[in-house]
């Protein structure tokens, strides 16, 4: 595999921006949607529902990245830019590895983004978190 088979910094950041936009739209809906619907039907929403919605909204980004990397290796941003996350040996990510990768990225976003710079000189275009979790981001072959 040559370097161009791996996604570079621009592509990965662009895909991340797409995912950020998607989450920006979905998270508020998750946080406020159920209480608002409850309130529209029966009046004031109960506290547990509000709390549950808040927790759900907080976990949503982790689940979004984690489950999609585990399932297909592609988030929506990856789908648009044709990138897919795999283990270094080319296998799919397991659930634990993908959820951990997602959680670390979201909990330590600064380190995550700073670690992306490593992509510029790594022969497999791996970021810091890719080295940590032994993953690569591949360009998906074009369908004919």
């Amino acid at each position: 595999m040559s370097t161009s088979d791996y996604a570079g910094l621009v592509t990965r950041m662009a895909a991340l921006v797409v995912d950020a936009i998607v989450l920006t739209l979905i998270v508020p809906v998750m946080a406020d949607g159920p209480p608002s619907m409850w309130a529209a039907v029966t009046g004031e929403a109960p506290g547990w529902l509000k709390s549950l919605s808040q927790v759900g909204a907080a976990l949503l980004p982790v689940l979004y990245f984690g489950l999609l990397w585990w399932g297909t290796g592609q988030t929506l941003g990856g789908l648009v830019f044709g990138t897919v996350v795999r283990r270094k040996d080319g296998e799919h990510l397991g659930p634990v590895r993908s959820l951990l990768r997602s959680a670390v990225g979201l909990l330590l976003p600064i380190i995550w983004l700073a670690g992306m710079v490593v992509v510029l000189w790594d022969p497999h275009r791996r970021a810091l978190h890719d080295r940590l979790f032994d993953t690569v981001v591949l360009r998906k072959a074009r369908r004919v």
Partner: protein
Amino acid sequence: MNERAPLGRLALGATVLAGERLKLFDKPVPETLAVLVGVAERGRDTARRALRSAGDTAKKATDSAKKAGDTVRKFSPSPPKRVREFLDEARSRGTKTIRIGRLEAKGFVTRTMDDSIRWAERTIIPRMVDDMTPHIINNVVPKLIDGVMPQIRSHVVPVIIEDLSTDERIRTLIAEQSHSIVTEATEELRENSARADDRLEDSFRKLFKA
């Protein structure tokens, strides 16, 4: 065929052609007509010869004819046979004349028609088109559009829209086209981002090597 055809033969050919077109008779021409034409031709030839040898030679000719007649009568076939020969010759001659006349008439008609059409194309039609175009554009077409448009709007357009919207082929075409546009846009986006990746890395390498 530059030589001008005799008028009589031309008329005969034209008559035969018209008869064929009107299905009055089939090809080849009827035998009776051929015989009639042959007899007429022979009569004409005889008349010409007779006129030519008029005058002093008439008497000599009469005497010679009388002598020859006696001789011929002595050795010639019987009258029915002579008549048959005469008719056969007349039929053959008539058939030939009719065939030639028919060909000449056909050529004449074709040439005349071609000339007429060329003449009309050269003189009449351009003038007619020039004269009629402004009238058609200024008067006829607006009236036609004014008259037809409400009908088209109320009757034709809804039917066409209905047909187009329910036609499976059109739907497939639109879906394929939309899919193709999205696919192309995505591919372009991916290629651009890949190029940007490469450029950025090249710049980075150059910067740090320097």
